[in-house]
């Protein structure tokens, strides 16, 4: 007889028994130990039919193929650029993936991307040893000029973006800022200084209250209340 012990949307700590019996299946963040299903990390319990999984709430970014991320150029080599991905591993942007321009042999690569520049790029490959290849060819992938970068918990990024980008579009419209959200937890904001500040406050609010339902309405209200101070 299988029995689910943990409650839906409850916090589970590592080692906690979530369910007993072989009829329940372990999902992400859980593992089977004999008859029991145990939590493998700290997370929010989600029960989906017979499967039990954990949604991570904290932790560093783990690079995944297909993610669009914001990176900082930390080194320039013969054949490309090394980028800091805000994770334990750096990414390589090769010359052929960086631009469609013709780059002459021996050209100074810093005229394209210099040390300290921020770029939006997409991960094309992650190896088992976590060597990361990124590309700059694709819609929206570019060098970021001006603005400012803030860092958020990468696990809250889906909430900041919202369903089909609804949340970030709302912030963009209300604050008249350009915003790019990287899945690695770096966010670029460019606009009038006061507007930028409001955008940052809004993002921090989302980060703090990401568990709540009805978050979109709350944020809308927050933006309307504070929108009067906006300039530009």
């Amino acid at each position, binding site marked *: 007889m299988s029995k689910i012990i943990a409650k839906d949307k409850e916090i589970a*700590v*590592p080692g906690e*028994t979530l369910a007993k019996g072989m009829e329940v299946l372990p999902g992400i963040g859980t593992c089977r130990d004999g008859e029991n299903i145990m939590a493998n990390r*700290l997370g929010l319990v989600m029960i989906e039919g017979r499967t039990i999984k954990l949604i991570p709430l904290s*932790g*560093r970014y783990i690079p995944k193929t297909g993610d669009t991320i914001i990176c900082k150029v930390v080194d320039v080599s013969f054949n490309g650029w090394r980028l800091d991905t805000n994770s*334990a*591993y750096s990414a390589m942007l090769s010359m052929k993936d960086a631009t469609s321009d013709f780059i002459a042999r021996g050209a100074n690569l810093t005229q394209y991307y210099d040390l300290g520049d921020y770029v939006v790029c997409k991960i094309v490959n992650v190896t088992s040893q976590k060597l990361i290849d990124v590309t700059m060819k694709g819609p929206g992938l570019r060098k970021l000029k001006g603005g400012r970068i803030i860092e958020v918990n990468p696990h809250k990024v889906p909430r900041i973006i919202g369903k089909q980008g609804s949340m970030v579009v709302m912030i963009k419209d209300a604050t008249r800022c350009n915003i790019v959200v990287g899945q690695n937890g770096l966010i670029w904001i460019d606009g009038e200084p006061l507007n930028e500040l409001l955008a940052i406050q809004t993002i921090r609010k989302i980060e*703090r209250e*990401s568990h709540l339902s009805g978050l979109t309405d709350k944020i809308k209200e927050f933006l309307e209340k504070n929108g009067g101070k906006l300039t530009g």
Partner: protein
Amino acid sequence: MAYKQRIDGRGFDETRPIEAKVGVIQRADGSAMFKIGNTWAYAAVYGPRNLHPKFLQDPQRGILRCNYNMMPFSSSGERVRPGGSRRSKEISLVTEKALLPVLDLEEFPNSVVDVFIELPQTEAGSRCAGICAASMALADAGLNMKDLVCAVSLGRVDDKLLIDLDYSEESYKDGPVADIPIAMMPNSSKVTLLQMDGEISKEELMELLEKSRKVLMDIYEVQKRALKEKYHEVEV
């Protein structure tokens, strides 16, 4: 004079008051505080991070680096000289070994997880408090873990078997003393640290280990509650 009663009036199987909190250091990836009586431990976890120097890297898994540090005027005795010492190096090493069995760092080859344990004030049982705080901080950092680790010191003062010795008991002069820090993974009851200083018979040691199980489970409950509370606050 035989040892009849504990100075602070606790029962022989009782710990000092325990307090735990998670998420106490904003800049860290994971952090926790663990207080047991006058021994306070703060742990901060940074990582997984890029590991340098490169020769330390392990291409199969990430490595764990612990750093135990007592603050200069943290103990009741002499000023502790800042920086590493033989003692702090040893405790850093045993802390690392006590935490490694629960951690799964295979997902992070060539990287490092740094744990910094700071003790602003201590009164015996500091390595145990450090391990408790560090295990909560690692969980808070979102790392894959099989279990938490809870630790407590056991001991013998004169002819009595005690749990969670304080400084006056550790330094008891009128009879034999044994101080035994133990760390355990509560769900599997596996021991990850067992050290001893002093003298004790085999039977007494076995009795103490048996007694420690209940106390460690109580500590586990405190740790669990602290971890859940951090996110509960956000939820409400």
